[in-house]
């Protein structure tokens, strides 16, 4: 398929717009001088990628993304920013001094991955367009073939929960320790 053909599909215009938005947001995430701005730009990136999921007929995944990622994870991040008393204004010392090597490295990563993808998949078209994925299929998968990983993930969450509490718990002072034992 040539570029002319590709551009002529309206889906691709949508794709370009959303994609651009995502890229810009992601770029701002990593280069913003303001911590809170970075977090909020991530919200934008994540939201953009939810839109991309919709284009790919993965509605359930898109909404899970919005719910979990944007709804909980970002909030958590913002809490973390506040608790660690990060300067909420401009922070000059936010990035490390050396940026060249990381930039080169990331460029290398991008080139490698892109090149590999293009080499491998060339202009393979996507099979579905417009047909939504039935959530029933996902449910059957999750509780059928992948029930064990599903449960394991549950355990992981439980472990993360308990672990988080344990790690972040304030250590008892000796006085409180004493009271706990004798009580």
């Amino acid at each position, binding site marked *: 398929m040539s570029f002319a053909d590709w551009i002529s599909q309206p889906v691709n215009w949508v794709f370009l717009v959303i994609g651009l938005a995502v890229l810009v947001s992601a770029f701002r995430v990593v280069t913003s001088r303001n911590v809170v701005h970075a977090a909020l730009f991530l919200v934008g990136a994540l939201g953009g990628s939810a839109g991309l999921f919709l284009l790919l007929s993965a509605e359930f995944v898109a909404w899970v993304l919005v719910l979990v990622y944007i709804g909980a994870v970002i909030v958590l991040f913002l809490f973390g920013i506040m608790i660690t008393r990060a300067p909420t204004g401009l922070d000059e010392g936010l990035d490390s001094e050396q940026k060249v090597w990381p930039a080169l490295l990331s460029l*290398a*990563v991008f080139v*490698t*991955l892109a090149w*590999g993808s293009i080499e491998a998949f060339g202009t393979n078209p996507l099979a579905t367009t417009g047909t939504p994925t039935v959530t029933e299929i996902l449910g059957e998968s999750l509780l059928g073939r992948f029930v064990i990983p599903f449960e394991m993930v549950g355990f992981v969450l439980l472990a993360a929960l308990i672990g988080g509490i344990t790690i972040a718990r304030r250590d008892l002072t000796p006085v409180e320790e004493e009271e706990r034992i004798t009580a």
Partner: protein
Amino acid sequence: MTNLLILAAEEGEHLVQAGDGGWWADTAGIMLILPFVAFGLIMAFGKRLKHQGGEIAVAALGINLVWATILFVANLTGGVLDQTTFEIARIGSDLVFELGWVVDGLSIMMYFLVNFVGLLVFIYALGYMKGDVRVPWFFAAFSLFAGAMLILVGAPNLVQMIIGWEGVGLASYFLIGFYWDDLDNVKAGNKAFMTNKVADVGLILGAIIIGVTLGTFDFDALDLAAIEHSEALAGVALVGGFLLFFGAMGKSAQFPFHIWLPDAMAGPTPVSALMHAATMVTAGIYLMARTFPLFQNLATEARGWMVAIGAITLLAIGLLALVANDIKRVLAYSTVSQLGYMMTAVAAGGYTAGLFHLFTHAFFKGLLFLGAGSVIHAVHSNDLTDMGGLRKYMPTTYWTFVVGSLALAGIFPLAGFWSKDEILATLQFEGYVAFMWIAIAGAFVTAFYMTRAVALTFFGEYKGHAEPHESPRIMTGPLVGLAIPSILFGLLNIPGVSWPGIGNFTEWLGIRVVAMGDHHAEAIDFALAGMGFGAALLGIALGWMIWGKDRNTQQARDRFEVPALYPLLRHKYYVDDAALGLVWATSNPLARFVDWTNTYIIDGIVNAVGGGTKFLGGLVYNGLDQIGVDGVFNGLSAAADSAGSALRKIQTGRVQEYAAGFVAGALILVVLFVFVI
């Protein structure tokens, strides 16, 4: 072997009968062994005996004398010719070493001589050494000497003779240095031993040369080969013969090896009497006699030299007796002079003449020494200046001494006259006329110095400090015992006279005389005899005029001082100094070289080896171990250390840098797996 000699003799002019000596000859070996038994017994028990071991020595020689006398009588009545040997060793299939004893005229004469004179001297020594130090050792060493001397004269071959030769040399060393408390005596003993040893080199070399050429060391074989003019022997005869003569020069004190004999007087007088007058010093003459044909037939060029050396010895050393003040020294020089006579005679071809003089000389010289010992014992001094007028105090000693002196001087009819005359006749016959005149001059000198000695000792007034007295009978007995043969034995060999029933000395020497081409005068040459006798009388007269008249005064002693001659004589022709200088000159550099070799080379090698080992060890330790092995390990660990130091800088502790590495690594792997493979 002996049968061959009889064969040879039968071809000659005289037919000599010879029996085999019977049982006494077969057991004659006991004479050789008994003194050694005595040696052992004296060393073991001597101390406890009344005469400190002397009895044992006397007994041994007494028993020996039985054999010697019986054999002597058997020889003079019938002739004895026997030899007993035992094989000791063998090299290859040819060279055989035997030990044993010979019983023939010559050896019987020597057996008799050694045992008879030896016995008398031993008896004398019982008295002389009484109260002296170390008497058991004296008799033990003396017995050792007697045994070695008998081994020497009874030897059937050169090897045994050399064994005896060295044995008497050893005993001589012991006995000369008997009073070793005084260092001079020890030095005298060393001098004797060393001089003899130098000469013995010649003896041994000569024996080896001749023995290897012939294939045997046997005397019979040697003589037979010489008589038959064997080709093989002729080749080595001159060299071998001269070397043997060289050895004889040492033992018989020929010029210039005479230097040890005067100094040997440091030993006790009985030793001087027996060893250095009668027996040991005659061993060289005996050797010449045993190998007589070698010199007469094959090594004839050597004869002239030998006669000359004998003549020089005779005259030059005789002159030294004129300046000696020690009575024993006078007698010592006299002995050397007489040995010169004997050597001249034997070398010139006078087998009988030389041996007869040996025989008679043993008696009167032994007598003179014992007499001198008697005088010394009485006066407690050897010096002639301490003596004088002793004839009043010691008549027996005086008379026997005079008898001995007259015999020595060659006064008719005492023994010395006949033996000297025989020598003169031989020299004349063989054509050595010049040496004959020297011998006559020697007779003059002999008489001269003996008169001096007698005059200064027995005449005049005694001005010393001791109380002279006659010696005990145990000492004067042997004096008389020796005086009688000195008077009579000359008659045993009157030219042309053969006593009925016993024959004469010439015949007693037996078969070998005939076989060896000896000349024996048939009649007395009165002219010659008269010249010899006249020379002796002249000497006595002159001596008496100079020393006798003034009865031993300083004036007398100083009168005969020839300015030029006397210093030379006083220094003994500087021969002693020359010899000592020679020894020093040769041995000192050698000793220094050996020392240098030892210090630098041998020690150097040892030190170098040690140092080298140490160095090597150090090298291994320092180089190989410390630097090498340890270095490797240290290096490895240092390398690990530095590598670690370098590598640990990777651990910056910064997570982002770890992450960067992580990503980069993953990227490389991806590229590798996706694009390359």
